[in-house]
């Protein structure tokens, strides 16, 4: 039985200097090219959860898949170095990956080609674009269950035990069904580190390459195209109003909220 973790390489936006958050003259670009490329942090949590499950059960096999060019193999090598069994890269043109629908379509093709896959894990969202939709679209395309905002999964007695974070608490689910799971960050859940020896060994391990440009298995009309119109940076707008007089606080608050809502409506 196989678990797949979808991982994405993103720029480490924490490293981008404050003064560099400036849109260029074309209004379509911010230069973040000098930031290191890292694994999307939500995907790191998903990967760690997958490895904890495969640590606990020999019947589970782990695989990672990424969509991108050869540079993105760095995160696949990292995954192999920390114990993932297989790695796959779907090689595409960059414009094919601008929308969650496209990404889900490409993943759908890969997942349906392998009957052993029982569970698909994705990070809840990526640090670039932050759509937070890929997992849900993928589940719909696959016709599988979808569990979102999951922070823990265990495999015990042939069931997946899933814990989800809700607005008002935690939900625990037990399932044997195929599912797509989107993972949120979990406190004190960090991706394990690869030893130097395993990092060296991972360089020799094979990475399966799927080139959809050549095979053209994905129908052209199933890929949407988003055209970027422009980028703007919204100025931060903060205000603090102190409410005094305990007895009238609720009235003051009510008035403030109504004024805000009326302003938004206009």
């Amino acid at each position, binding site marked *: 039985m196989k678990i797949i973790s979808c991982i994405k390489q993103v720029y480490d936006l924490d490293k981008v*200097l404050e003064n560099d958050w400036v849109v260029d003259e074309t209004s379509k670009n911010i230069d973040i090219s*000098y930031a*290191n*490329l890292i694994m999307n942090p939500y995907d790191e949590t998903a990967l760690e959860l997958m490895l904890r499950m495969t640590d606990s059960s020999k019947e589970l096999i782990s695989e990672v898949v990424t969509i991108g060019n050869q540079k993105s193999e760095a995160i696949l090598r990292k995954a192999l170095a920390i114990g993932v069994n297989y790695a796959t890269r779907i090689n595409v043109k960059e414009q094919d990956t601008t929308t969650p629908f496209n990404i889900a379509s490409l993943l759908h093709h890969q997942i349906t080609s392998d009957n052993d896959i029982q569970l698909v894990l994705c990070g809840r969202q990526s640090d670039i674009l932050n759509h937070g939709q890929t997992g849900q679209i993928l589940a719909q395309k696959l016709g599988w269950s979808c569990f979102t905002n999951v922070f823990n999964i265990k495999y015990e007695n042939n069931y997946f035990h899933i814990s989800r974070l809700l607005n008002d608490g935690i939900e625990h689910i037990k399932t044997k069904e195929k599912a797509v799971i989107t993972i949120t960050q979990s406190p004190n859940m960090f*991706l*394990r*580190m690869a*030893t*130097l*020896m395993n990092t060296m060994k991972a360089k020799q391990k094979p990475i399966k390459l799927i080139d959809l440009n050549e095979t053209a298995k994905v129908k052209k009309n199933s890929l949407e195209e988003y055209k970027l119109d422009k980028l703007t940076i919204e100025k931060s707008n903060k205000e603090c109003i102190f409410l005094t007089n305990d007895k009238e606080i609720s009235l003051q608050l009510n008035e403030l909220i109504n004024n805000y809502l009326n302003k938004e409506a206009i």
Partner: protein
Amino acid sequence: MEKTEVINFFETVLGKERVVTNEEVLQEFATDITGLRMVQKHFGWKSENLASCILKIHTKEEAVEVMKFINENKIVSIPRTGGSGVCLGLETPSHSVVIDLSEMNEIIEINEDNFTITAQAGVPLQVLEETLNKKGYTSGHFPQSLPLAQMGGLVATRSIGQFSTLYGGIEDLLVGIEGVLPTGELVYIKNNPRKSTGPDLRHIWLGSEGAFGVITEVTVKIFKLPEERVMQAFAIEEFQTGLDIIKEIVQAGWKPAVTRLHDKTEAKESYGPFIKEDEGVLLFISEGPQGFASLEGNAVKTVCLKHKARELGSKPLELWLAHRNDICDHLDMYAKQGAVADTCEISAMWSDIGKIYNEVIARVAKEVPYLVAVTGHSSHSYVQGTNIYFMFGAMCAPSIEAAEKTYNQIFGIIMETTLKYNGSIAHHHGVGRYRSKWMKQELGSSYEMLKKLKKAFDPNGIMNQGVLIPVE
């Protein structure tokens, strides 16, 4: 004397609220931020040697009274300010007393005539620096612990800052100092630009690590904020090339405030998009009065290009400046991932430093079974030599004992190799309790001088027992 009697005395002197006996707080104060303890805490380590109490000192008079009592009753005491030590120098033996000066935190005077600032031991360096900046000055002292460290501890550990190649280490910055000896005398060394009046007594305090008394007040130099700054980074193919470049620059008489060489592993981690595979990185900042930085910057560039270094512009420096102290917000990050991780800085003469670097990297990679990484950089350079700041991480079985075994193995390799080539086992982190076992080899015949000084100043052996000189 019974513990309750001891506590009662302190409460009489300081007031009940300033004598802390809460076990959770005592556990927090039981150690410092040494990497070994970070990962051991993750595996469940708790100190079995809690202090009896923590004394929150507010005045020098209180420090005197407390020290006299402690000495008369032979109670082991641990002076402490910011708590950012990394060598187990602040670990509490059982029944000891922590003398906490972090609330003794007033800036006494900024003297713009003499270019000095006088501050109590508990003044955070960050506060001192921000205060100076508002008036157009700087302390020139920028250790990575800047967000955490306080003045007393910075002097006691013989600390150094990232801009040291120009401004010097704390030993170059200290002008005057006041402290309380283990036997309770309040002593003051006055401010002076230079003197020839016997051995420089300030050096008893510099690097004392709490073993020779309690520092209560320091006066350090200040500098005008630089009018000009030139930042440039270069890529190099070999680490030794980087060392050769730095050596040529400093021996020619140039003193770029920031002079750093990162090996290929560190360079890839921090500056990957700027460099090619297997390149290291050199970082230079020149600063000073108008015209000075450009002059020095051009000289640095000439030397670098002569050695076929590749220009990378100033962006790597901008990144370094913005993120150099980020680790202070995530000190236990690697521990949470179950890794034994820490840093170890050593120094050596130019003729030996490259050999130490190469041998440590090779030995650690070969001998440590679950090594994650070992890296090194040079960050403080002199006409005679430089330091290497090793950083290491290794996985281990999830137990306190396994963590210690792995840590000791890696540290041991660094210490042995350094001593083999006549290097020094500590460049600026101090000795603490952890490195004291190598002090005899480090000092050789001069170890007797240290022992005699300790005996003279602290006849009852009460001050931070086990630091500098191991307990036999």
